[in-house]
């Protein structure tokens, strides 16, 4: 019965991928016991692999998994007879069952789960890993390698965050309208952090990171569909799609790094850019400016080079002006300095950079040194430029970008 076995395995895996987050969210929304829900689900998937080859794949695999997971959860709680909370926990599980809809569909609590994962009472660094694990089912080792920490460290952070959700009583709730914008920013930032981790791997050759960008876009689509009236959700999705559209053009045929201004526009994904433009228009129709919309608008301005043949730097500078009023981020300041240099010349850009030179975070931030090197070079300060190039090269982990910086450094010597 090898064929049936494979079918069952494939069906379980399909159900796992499609409904993992939905089931975790539903099973933990009431009890706030994320780890317990994950354990119960793992048992349910194991049971499915064992039973489906014999009995066939059930008509509604999700409902089957839910009822098995729920029985496991109840058994586990019952075994904890010493716990004074066991009765309360069982009561919550019973309430959840009574709440089931009659058509067998599992209610979608994923958005509530994401708000719990990105709650301000949890360390911001664990928001994205928590969402990746609970909504998408990434294991700790995969998340650890994507975020460049050891599996043990990541696993410990995730365990701590889950126990904090339960113990501190972090709610699975879509925040009140008065708090929604601020709290949504936490969720969107976590999704963007996941995207950024995936984006680092330009060539798509790092299998640990390859899926991260795609999964982040999937989460962006999910949030946009679940919160259709929040401008920043399509704003973020638009930003990610603009970036994704340019992914193939970031390396040339030889695998060398190509900076944005020199990319072959034919290699941009024009359908994706079209979708990003439409999302940005939709976002701006709400009349509420936000960081992700502004960053998407910057990307849109860069992509407009397709039609005009030139980059509208004054427009990009105005967008960065607006962004810098929203956040004091040195990243925004660096990009703004580059935009200023392209409008008013390299000396003007340098004096913008000088305003943030004291920020200690910049010491190890490659883009700052690369921008400084470029502007010093354009001003004819070759010695300062070379020192900054050396610093940038030393900080860069991507071989292709290092080689690009080295070429720029060498080209400067006449």
């Amino acid at each position: 019965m090898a064929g049936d076995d494979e079918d069952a395995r494939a069906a379980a895996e399909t159900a796992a991928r499609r409904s993992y987050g939905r089931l975790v969210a539903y099973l933990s929304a009431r009890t706030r016991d994320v780890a317990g829900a994950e354990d119960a689900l793992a048992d349910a998937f194991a049971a499915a692999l064992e039973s489906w080859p014999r009995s066939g794949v059930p008509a509604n695999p999700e409902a089957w998994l839910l009822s098995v997971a729920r029985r496991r959860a109840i058994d586990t709680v019952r075994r904890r007879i010493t716990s004074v909370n066991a009765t309360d926990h069982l009561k919550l599980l019973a309430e959840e069952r009574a709440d089931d809809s009659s058509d067998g569909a599992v209610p979608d609590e994923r958005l509530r789960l994401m708000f719990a994962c990105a709650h301000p009472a949890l360390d911001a660094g664990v928001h994205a890993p928590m969402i990746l694990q609970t909504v998408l089912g990434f294991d700790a080792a995969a998340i650890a390698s994507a975020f460049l920490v050891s599996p043990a460290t990541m696993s410990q952070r995730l365990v701590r965050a889950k126990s904090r959700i339960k113990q501190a009583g972090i709610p699975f709730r879509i925040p009140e309208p008065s708090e929604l914008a601020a709290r949504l920013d936490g969720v969107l930032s976590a999704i963007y952090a996941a995207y950024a981790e995936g984006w680092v791997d330009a060539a798509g050759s790092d299998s640990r990171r390859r899926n991260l960008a795609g999964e982040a876009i999937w989460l962006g689509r999910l949030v946009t569909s679940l919160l259709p009236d929040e401008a920043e959700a399509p704003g973020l999705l638009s930003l990610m799609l603009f970036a994704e559209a340019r992914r193939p053009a970031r390396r040339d045929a030889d695998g060398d790094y190509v900076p944005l201004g020199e990319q072959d526009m034919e290699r941009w994904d024009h359908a994706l850019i079209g979708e990003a433009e439409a999302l940005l228009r939709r976002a701006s129709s709400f009349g509420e400016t936000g960081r992700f919309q502004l960053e998407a608008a910057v990307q849109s301005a860069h992509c407009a080079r397709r039609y005009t043949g030139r980059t509208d730097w004054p427009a990009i500078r105005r967008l960065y002006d607006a962004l810098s009023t929203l956040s004091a981020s040195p990243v925004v300041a660096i990009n703004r300095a580059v935009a200023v240099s392209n409008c008013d010349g390299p000396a003007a850009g340098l004096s913008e950079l000088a305003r943030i030179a004291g920020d200690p975070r910049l010491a190890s931030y490659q883009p700052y040194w690369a921008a400084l090197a470029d502007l010093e070079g354009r001003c004819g300060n070759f010695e300062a430029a070379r020192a900054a190039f050396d610093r940038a090269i030393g900080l860069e982990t991507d071989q292709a970008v290092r080689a690009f910086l080295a070429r720029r450094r060498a080209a400067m010597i006449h």
Partner: protein
Amino acid sequence: MQYMLLIHMDESVMATATAQPGYEMSSPYAAYGEALVKAGAMVSGDRLKPSSSATVVRVRGDKTEVLDGPFADTKEQLGGFYIIEAPDLDAAIQWAARCPGAQLGTIEVRPTGKCNRHGGR
């Protein structure tokens, strides 16, 4: 769930405020306590005497050591507390933000042992 709101503040600021002529157990706290009671969230709460009145006790072996002063000698001291009933952390944070002590000091929000009594969302 039950949460304890621990009000940490700089005692010298408190001392200056309470030394003002005509000072009474500040009306903001009275109003806040009333709001907690009205909402059915109040379990208990009180102000603490200055940390200079604190005594630290510990037993090591068969010896009971008694020392004067607070447990930790920090700039901000525990000045008072509330134990409140709240459905979740967000509700507890909202109460903490309304506490007059949050304006000058810092409120620490800690769930008590009675976790998950209510699972309301």
